[in-house]
């Protein structure tokens, strides 16, 4: 461990300290919260009021502003969970374990939101609530992966063992995600002739994609807020015997 410390930047080791991490999260939280609020509110107003209706799908197209950001977030959240888990496994970094654990519920709810909005959007577009569309199917499998990680995490009593085991599982899942995605895409084209999909559109005018971009960035900011809230809870819980946590609690 001692030799390794030389080639990693200093902030990495500060990040490894739960106390430093707790404080920096506390400082960053308001900024991200304000950014998320502005971006999400602005994005939603723009999306609902000012963005033009789609010439084919009409106003139901406006669901894209929730569907796409939540789907993107669900995927990148999994990536983050797996990477944080790997860091926790390799460098025995407690904070990374906690980040991985905090990622799982957010990612799972985002996957649920992407699935629900996809289904609701499917009703006016395809005429049925659920279609075994490749994207929806792989999102459903992503949700299963999240549920598996969360179930394993809660089934193991020892905190550090639970964190390590979930990290291994999420890494295995990470290797599998491209394979699953490819196989589902391929299976889908085999089963049904390629109809128009939910999200792939030829060229989107700027007044359509700018609010979309706003919503995506807003969702990321919201993710940061929720993650930091959860992370702070997790740090308090895991470090409950540390002196600084006691002082913090007594000062309240």
């Amino acid at each position, binding site marked *: 461990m001692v030799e390794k410390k030389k080639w990693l930047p200093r902030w990495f080791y500060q990040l490894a300290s739960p106390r430093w991490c707790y404080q920096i999260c506390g400082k960053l939280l308001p900024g991200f919260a304000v950014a998320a609020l502005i971006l999400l509110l602005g994005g939603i107003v723009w999306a609902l009021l000012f963005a033009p209706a789609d010439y084919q799908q009409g106003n139901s197209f406006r669901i894209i502003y929730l569907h796409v950001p939540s789907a993107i977030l669900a995927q990148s959240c999994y990536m983050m969970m797996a990477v944080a888990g790997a860091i926790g*496994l390799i460098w025995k970094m407690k904070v990374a374990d906690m980040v991985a654990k905090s990622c799982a519920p957010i990612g799972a709810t985002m996957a649920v939101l992407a699935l629900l909005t996809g289904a609701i959007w499917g009703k006016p577009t395809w005429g049925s609530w659920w279609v075994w569309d490749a994207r929806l199917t792989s999102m459903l*499998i992503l949700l*299963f*992966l999240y*549920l*598996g990680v969360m*179930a*394993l995490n809660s*089934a*193991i*009593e*020892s905190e*550090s*063992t*639970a964190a*390590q*085991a979930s990290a*291994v*599982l999420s*890494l*295995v*899942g990470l*290797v*599998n995600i491209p*394979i*699953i995605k*490819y*196989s*589902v895409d*391929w*299976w889908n084209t*085999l089963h049904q002739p390629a109809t128009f999909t939910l999200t792939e559109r030829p060229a989107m005018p700027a007044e359509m994609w700018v609010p979309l971009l706003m919503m995506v960035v807003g969702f990321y900011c919201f993710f940061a807020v929720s993650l930091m809230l959860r992370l702070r809870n997790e740090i308090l819980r895991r470090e409950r015997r540390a002196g600084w946590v006691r002082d913090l609690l007594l000062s309240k």
Partner: protein
Amino acid sequence: MNQPLNPQRRPAIGMGALFAATLKRDLKLSLRRKSELVNPLIFFLMVITLFPLGVSPEPGFLAELAPGVIWVAALLATLLSMDSLFRTDFDDGSLEQLLLSPQPVMLVVCAKVLAHWMLTGLALTLVAPLISVMLFLPAEGVPGLMLSLLLGTPTLSLVGAIGAALTVGLKRGGVLISLLVLPLYIPVLIFGTGAVQAAVTGLPLDGYLALLGALLALGTVLAPLAIGAALRISVSG
């Protein structure tokens, strides 16, 4: 008498022999516990029987359903037998001894998975022709079915073993394994049934089999690593 404690060690048994010894040991253990040996097979047959009863006994319909049904049943049967892969070793302390061996754990793990596959995946592959007759699968599909099972079921055993290793320390790991492992089984299922359907309709199989082979190669390289790490974590807890 103990040997003198000299650091000059003479390897009496090499790695290949350890692999063979573990394979032989696990096969022997399963053969001495006959009920567990045939359970996955019986389960496989029973699940298959449920479909004509539950859906429809009409031959044309069953023939269309057969590739999927056989593959899903094979998948569930593999999963059912997965829990016991490391559990008995964990309970009687053999797993501790295994992990404390100076030999690479991956080697022993590979041998154990191979033994497991020989008694489930291979056995399922061998009874598959019988099942395909019961489900009216056209005769042209049978070679494709057997080849896809032969290439696909080892991957199922490898991936399932990761789940088994992760849950071995838990008192009730059975249901949890399915939850962890089933999503990971989906590519094998898709390509496996794809191969059988292609065989039935007379399309070339090579692509599907190549994909199943690629999955198997990837699994053989990566799964033992994950299984080894998972076992150390589970025993540590």
